[in-house]
């Protein structure tokens, strides 16, 4: 079975001296209707990976792949990336304002998308726009159509941004709730889960929040210093992490039942591109041995469960 999205040996470099590499040889795939979360901290390369896949890298960035969507190469070809966006790839960002034109009414923006994607006339597009707002559970669509983006709350703007996606087969989402309050965040996550189900949409979500991974993802890839260090089904990876970084990250999450000292990972991740020989997590790793500083561990194991570590935690995934 071929994947809906197939990323192989993806690298993302930025012009500069020395050229900072943000993503360093990442392979991953997303099947139709699958929800994959890429989790990592700032500088891990997760956002640049997502931007590269959607053809939206900054001008001084360059990506090498291949990245195939439904078998077609979408990397490095701005026109095919834009066409892919029109034909089945959608995306939402941290700040919905980036997806919306500030000085145009919500309705006009939706109608334009509806006319472009369905090739219909204006009358039918207005109906489609109303339906789009209903699909993201916004009330009183008719009055909303006349509003400008700044008149809406952050959560409502994010809903409109999602509505603008028409009917993608895969949605790329870059921490879409990080700018929102927790009570609103849960609502937007619920909406995304519902849309995946209703539209048969696949999801590639990039986040720093393991709670969001738990809420949405079927499968998870953990990134550290430009690479995927662990991949696995969400339930297995979150309960039995194999990479010491994943384990450290999970332990560091503050919990409502937690008291006193928080678990921490000593030190800080290397800055993008400032990488060294051997395992990039080694300086912070509680299990490091001498050859961790020499040999670079490669991601080994099946797509359903892989880890890049010389001394992974072991144990069965089926408890």
């Amino acid at each position, binding site marked *: 079975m071929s994947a809906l999205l197939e990323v192989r040996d993806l690298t993302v470099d930025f012009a500069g001296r020395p050229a900072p590499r943000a993503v360093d040889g990442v392979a991953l795939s997303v099947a139709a209707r699958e929800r994959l979360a890429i989790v990592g901290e700032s500088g891990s390369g997760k956002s640049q990976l997502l931007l590269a896949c959607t053809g939206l890298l900054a001008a001084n960035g360059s990506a090498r792949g291949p990245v195939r969507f439904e078998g077609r190469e979408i990397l490095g070809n701005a026109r095919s990336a834009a066409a892919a966006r029109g034909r089945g790839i959608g995306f939402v960002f941290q700040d919905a304002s980036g997806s919306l034109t500030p000085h145009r009414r919500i309705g006009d923006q939706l109608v334009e998308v509806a006319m472009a994607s369905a090739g219909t006339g204006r009358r039918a597009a207005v109906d489609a726009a109303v339906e789009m707002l209903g699909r993201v559970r916004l*009330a009183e669509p008719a009055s909303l159509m006349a509003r400008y983006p700044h008149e809406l709350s952050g959560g409502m703007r994010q809903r409109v941004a999602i509505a603008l996606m028409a009917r993608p087969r895969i949605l790329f989402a870059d921490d879409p709730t990080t700018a929102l309050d927790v009570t609103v965040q849960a609502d937007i996550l619920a909406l995304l889960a519902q849309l995946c189900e209703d539209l048969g949409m696949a999801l590639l979500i990039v986040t720093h929040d393991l709670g969001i991974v*738990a809420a949405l993802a079927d499968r998870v890839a953990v990134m550290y210093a430009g690479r995927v260090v662990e991949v696995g089904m969400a339930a297995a990876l979150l309960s039995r992490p194999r990479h010491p970084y994943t384990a450290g990250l999970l332990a560091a999450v*503050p919990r409502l039942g937690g008291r*006193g000292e928080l678990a*921490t990972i000593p030190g*800080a991740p290397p800055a993008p591109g400032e990488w060294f020989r051997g395992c990039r997590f080694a300086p912070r790793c509680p299990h490091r041995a001498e050859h961790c500083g020499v040999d670079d561990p490669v991601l080994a194991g099946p797509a359903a469960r892989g880890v890049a570590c010389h001394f992974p935690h072991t144990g069965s995934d089926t408890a």
Partner: protein
Amino acid sequence: MSAMLEVRNATVTFPRPAADGGRLTAVGGATFALQAGEILGLVGESGCGKSSLGRAILGLVPLAAGEIRWRGRRIDTVPREAFRPLRRELQLVFQDPAASFDPRMTIAESVAEPLRALVPQLSAPDRAARVEAILGEVGLAVELAARYPHQLSGGQLQRAGIARALIVDPAFLVCDEPVSALDVSVQGQIVNLLARIRRERGLACLFISHNLAVVAHLAERILVMHRGRIIEDGLRDEILQAPRHPYTRTLLDSVLAVEPVAARRLIAARPSSRDAVAAPELTP
């Protein structure tokens, strides 16, 4: 015994953006007390007034009504210029360490700044010694003192931010979202540092955060703010296990567990996953 800090009916208002002469109420009649050495959590979502309340206590925004007493003495009526001696006792740790440091000053210069302003009689060598000692206390290597803010990581910069607040030996610290700009793996380092310093120095602290779980780790007593009001004030375990106010319950019910079954149950229970959401009332 009277409390170290007493806030009574504190009200903070701002002019409306539309300039119709009216005012928006950011904090509406907040009342609470804080004992010496106590760490009090203040939680709420954006716009609830928690930062405005913290700033009002530090004399950075004026009160429209109510009063604030520090060691029994009213401080909300103290004019800005006369507030300086109080500055030594009441200090602030900012949310975004990168934005709170002057990019053209070295870390040592920035950390020394409050000393320069508030203890001008101190000699330069004494000042330098104090800076070195405080950087050690917050776990910053001495060679970082000569660097500029952009050369430090977010976690290192927040350590410097804490050093800058501590250098005048305050008795009370307002920490306004001190870890929300940091990565999870670094966030715990700063939370633990604050907990240790507070314990060792016997500092009182108002820890403001939108993250209930972070507050749960630190504070034994928690205030919950919503729409400018303190809607709940109680011991941590009471608030977390038996919240009295429906909003506190909503807030608790929105915290995602890092566990798929529970996290999925939480989002599946959101009414708005099926129902329409009403448009919010638009502020004029």
